[in-house]
């Protein structure tokens, strides 16, 4: 898929995410908006080897949404990719729907259930380790939030992955600089985040997480790296990306615009689309 089509799809995904959350009255808009390009680069950009018609393909790549609260963005991407009907997105968060506020592995295309932060990297390490043991060539890719890096378990997994030389493991950090109540650098400093990962024995790339060209540069060679180290891509992003009054503002972790703000947001997203 070319870059222009990807950009157009990103606008569609944001609009879908918005309508899902408005319709359900609940969800995580800010963090979903910040990782749209990352998800599209992985799926629509052809980085991940996955096939919606063959879910149990042995050599399929394993993607883990460790920041499971960005479920809405992943649902839209997976539906558009063909894992389940796009019409199903309208059921999100409603009685009996299989699409809830955090992803679970009963949904086609979801490998691993998440929701509580700090689990996905360890799970990914286990998958990558089993692939290495069996000399299977699938990749394991884990998307984390930057606030998630406050969890000690992330660093337990990071230590172990580097020691095991899991070069078949890629972590991507959605570095949107925000947690629910605060900015990460005001709450507890994470920077220099790249140096922390490097010190833990990982290869590090820092990219603009909304620029497909940069994402592809970091992702296109993940299978042919010569380094024995696992790779972390720190993707600088903007929380709430796509809606002017949400971008980089604190109240949009799981708040929902109402009244006039709702209309402004919808208009901006539709114009974008």
């Amino acid at each position, binding site marked *: 898929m070319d870059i222009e089509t990807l950009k157009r799809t990103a606008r569609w995904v944001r609009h879908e995410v918005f309508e899902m959350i408005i319709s359900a009255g609940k969800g995580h808009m800010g963090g979903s908006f910040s990782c749209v390009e990352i998800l599209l680069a992985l799926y629509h950009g052809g980085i991940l080897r996955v096939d919606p018609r063959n879910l149990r393909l042995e050599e399929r790549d394993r993607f883990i949404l460790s920041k499971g609260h960005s479920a809405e963005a992943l649902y839209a991407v997976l539906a558009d990719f063909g894992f389940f009907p796009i019409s199903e997105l309208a059921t999100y968060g409603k009685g009996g729907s299989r699409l809830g506020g955090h992803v679970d592995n009963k949904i086609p295309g979801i490998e691993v259930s998440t929701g509580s932060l*700090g689990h996905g990297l360890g799970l990914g*390490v*286990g998958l990558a380790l089993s692939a290495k*043991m069996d000399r299977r060539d699938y990749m394991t890719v884990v998307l984390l939030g930057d606030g998630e890096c406050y969890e000690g378990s992330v660093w337990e997994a990071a230590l172990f992955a580097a020691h095991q030389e899991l070069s078949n493991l890629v972590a991507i950090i959605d570095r949107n600089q925000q947690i629910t109540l605060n900015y990460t650098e005001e709450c507890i400093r994470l920077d220099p985040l790249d140096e922390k990962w490097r010190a833990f024995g990982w290869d590090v790339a820092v990219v603009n997480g909304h620029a497909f060209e940069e994402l592809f540069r970091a992702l296109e060679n993940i299978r042919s790296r010569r380094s024995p180290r696992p790779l972390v891509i720190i993707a600088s992003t903007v929380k709430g990306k796509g809606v002017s009054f949400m971008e980089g503002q604190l109240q949009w972790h799981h708040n929902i615009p109402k009244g006039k703000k709702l209309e402004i947001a919808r208009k901006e997203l539709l114009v974008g689309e």
Partner: protein
Amino acid sequence: MMEIGVDVKPTHDLNVDIRDAFFDEVYRIAASDRNVIVLTDDQGAFSLERFKNDLQGQYFNMGIAEQNIISVAAGLALGGKIPFVYGISTFMTMRCFEQIRDDLSCMNLPVTIVGSGPGYSYGSDGPTHHATQDVAILRTLPHLTILNPADAVASTACVQMGYKAVGPTYIRIERGVLPVLYDDHHSFSAGFAQIRMGRDLLIISTGIMVHKALEVSDRLSEIGIGAGVLDLYRLKPVYEPSLLSSLQGVERIVTLEENSIVGGLGSLVAEILADHKRMIALKRIALPDRHCYEYGNRDWQHSYEGLDVAGIVRVIEGWK
């Protein structure tokens, strides 16, 4: 009491350390199935040494990082491996309880957690090392099987149960040479076994306390009280209909465990009796709801908390 249930008599003393018997069996299956992986949080065992030497690629000392161990084990299981995770019971169940819930129980993954040092095994190490609430908290998790073998034969069978399970399993493993209760051909599918019949009351116990229950039964018989003993080696799931049918004719039940009085064996028996309107008098003998900051070995701790044979006999004798 009606003669229902398996009446198993002690057969022979194998003189085998129960933990060594356990890991010898793990080694045996791992040697023939390279998908079996042992992970530990830096906890050794004599019989694990062979893993390090012979099955290097199937053994990982993952350091003191229990949260990561459970998540990695879950990932390995997703990748088709059959992980056995080994560490001290308290650390392997409490530090990483959420990983057990979210990664193993929610996704129903076949990972076996082997907790060493149940109850007051690490008596003098203090409350941080006392595994006296693990059963209570883990019992709340769907899909999880909880096993508490009392002898080397049962512990070996537990390895097979973990190996063949479709979901997660927690096994509390004792250490030392304990009298053998089961013959080698015993089927452990029922989840419990009545190992002694008694006309006056039934002691339901689990793990190492089953041996104490037998001693208590001996002492009670000297004073004319016939106490049967039932070994509930599978604490979850309990197949209630067969347990209830083995309680036919029983008028008094004593539960005996080395867990907190809150939420363990006694609680689960009480729940089953209440749910099925079985009005059988029940006395729960367990550890009091407090942390024990008096230090001694396991036997001392038992005496201190009234779980020694004499103390238990006194409680049962005085139970009107």
